[in-house]
């Protein structure tokens, strides 16, 4: 109990209180420890946590392979990929300089010197710098294996967003309609094509949409016809008088409208959410420090 429960709670209480109080207490020792060493400890433990994650991953995949559970072949692929990248990261420097040129191996670098007949020497990169060196084997693995996979996983979502737009986003009530209309205005107004859509086009679309709405409620053809004729006539008249400028009236010009929506009502909602999140985080952090919240223990 002491090791499994009370010491972790004491760690949270002590270091949490120390870090929080360092913002307010003007003491050099506390400030130096909290701002420098304590945060370094955090960084180091975070780095170890990454290794823990990798070990757990290997454990799960090995169990799947050894027990030949469904899809074990793919687990073998995951394990092989892990060790491939692990060996490149930890056991192969992968960066040997000959002047400014970089080669993956000592052999390749020496062969390059021989073939060019230069008097340069091979300079292997330092351990540690080999994972951050331009042209290294580690960077090759990053560029041609990790990078495409990571990018494509996220790019896949574009297709599902499109599918959801068609099949799932429904204007079932006023709030949902408001959400969709705001989304559409932002989507069109933020990209170049939005500035090619004339404000007069939007006005005509609006007039027809209101006509459809009137038809749903009034169910009187005369009223609907009268509205459409009247509104379109008014819009046409103003258009002729003003000479059909593409961005006037500005309130119907998509880029201007989206800017207003973005910087006024949207900002109000976002600010409220941000304040709410801030208050929630403060309350939760204090709960952790005071030991009221113990979810990190698995309780």
């Amino acid at each position, binding site marked *: 109990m002491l090791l499994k429960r009370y010491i972790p709670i004491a760690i949270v209480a002590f270091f949490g209180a120390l870090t929080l109080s360092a913002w307010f207490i003007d003491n050099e020792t506390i400030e130096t420890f909290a*701002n420098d060493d304590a945060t370094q400890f955090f960084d180091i433990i*975070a780095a170890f946590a990454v290794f823990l994650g990798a070990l757990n991953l290997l454990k799960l995949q090995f169990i799947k392979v050894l027990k030949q559970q469904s899809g074990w072949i793919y687990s073998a692929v995951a394990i092989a990929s892990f060790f491939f990248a692990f060996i490149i990261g930890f056991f192969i420097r992968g960066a040997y300089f000959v002047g400014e040129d970089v080669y993956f191996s000592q052999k390749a670098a020496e062969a390059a010197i021989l073939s060019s007949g230069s008097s340069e020497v091979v300079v292997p990169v330092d351990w540690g*710098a080999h994972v951050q060196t331009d042209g290294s084997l580690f960077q090759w693995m990053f560029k041609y294996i990790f990078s495409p996979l990571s990018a494509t996983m996220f790019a896949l979502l574009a297709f599902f967003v*499109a599918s959801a737009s068609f099949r799932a986003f*429904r204007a079932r009530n006023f709030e949902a309609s408001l959400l969709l209309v705001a989304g559409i205005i932002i989507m069109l107004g933020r*990209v*170049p094509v939005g500035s090619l859509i004339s404000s007069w086009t939007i006005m005509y679309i609006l007039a027809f949409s209101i006509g459809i709405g009137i038809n749903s409620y009034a169910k009187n053809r005369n009223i609907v016809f009268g509205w459409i004729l009247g509104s379109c006539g008014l819009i046409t008249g103003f258009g002729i008088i003003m000479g059909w400028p593409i961005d006037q009236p500005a309130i119907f010009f998509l880029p201007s409208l989206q800017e207003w929506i973005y910087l006024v009502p949207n900002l109000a909602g*976002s600010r409220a959410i941000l304040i709410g999140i801030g208050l929630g985080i403060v309350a939760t952090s204090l709960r952790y420090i005071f030991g009221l919240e113990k979810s990190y223990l698995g309780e």
Partner: protein
Amino acid sequence: MKFLEDIILKLGEVDRRVIFVLIGLAVLIPLLTPISLPVRETPTTVKFYDGIEDIPKNSKVLVSFDYGPSTRPEIHPMNVGVLRHMFRNGHQIYISCLWPDGIYMALDALEEITDEVNPDNVSTFNIKEYEDYILLGYRPGAEAVIKGLASDLRKVYTVDANGNFIDDIEMMDDIKNLNDFAYIYSGSAGYPGTFEWVKYGGDPTGVPMSSGTTSVQVNEVIPYVQTGQLIGLLAGMPGAAEYEKLINVPGIAIQGMAAQSFAHIVIVLFIVFGNLAFFIKQRRDRKY
């Protein structure tokens, strides 16, 4: 009319793979047949540009690469543009990374700038490492790293990305912590990124800062722009395209705007069409 409604209803039940193909074509075709569309700057991008112009010439600036390959199309053009803008104004750039992939993004960005030549085949930017820029590298720890930088940079970085001791680098002589920078910029794709830089970097030190973010993050970050905690903002790929126009160096962000525009039109049509089918079905169900 009933015939039209029947067609709309039938199309509303189309296989989702047809939708995938349509959106794929909407993006691919404009990329294969380059179409130029006019880019219109938004106030937040102009504010961002002016914020960098207002930095006193030949200052020391911190640029943080806080993104990876998954968000490269949005953030990378911004960061390359920022580096161009900064080098053009004679600033010394100190590059840090809160994401492990950020270091490679930084290397690519620097390579793009150093490889650039003018029509006379002379390098546009004659920049040298340890004179014009230094690559500090990646450190794990998110906000703890920023807090450490705000206090004492040498506790976080003892060596740079090339393994050289920080104390041996002349460019680092006058740098003790974040207060010694004239400006902080973060190209951020999520956590850690803009929020952490604002909370633990910009706000406590008062150093002017700004950020370029992915489109997904823009709505959460905009309150910081209105309060002045961020001086302007580059919002996603359209923001990067606007910035490329302002610095007068068209790049891949502007090239991608046609594809972006057409894809948006297709998605808006999907939403309108899908809702049409929904209303027709709803009305028919109510009748019976």
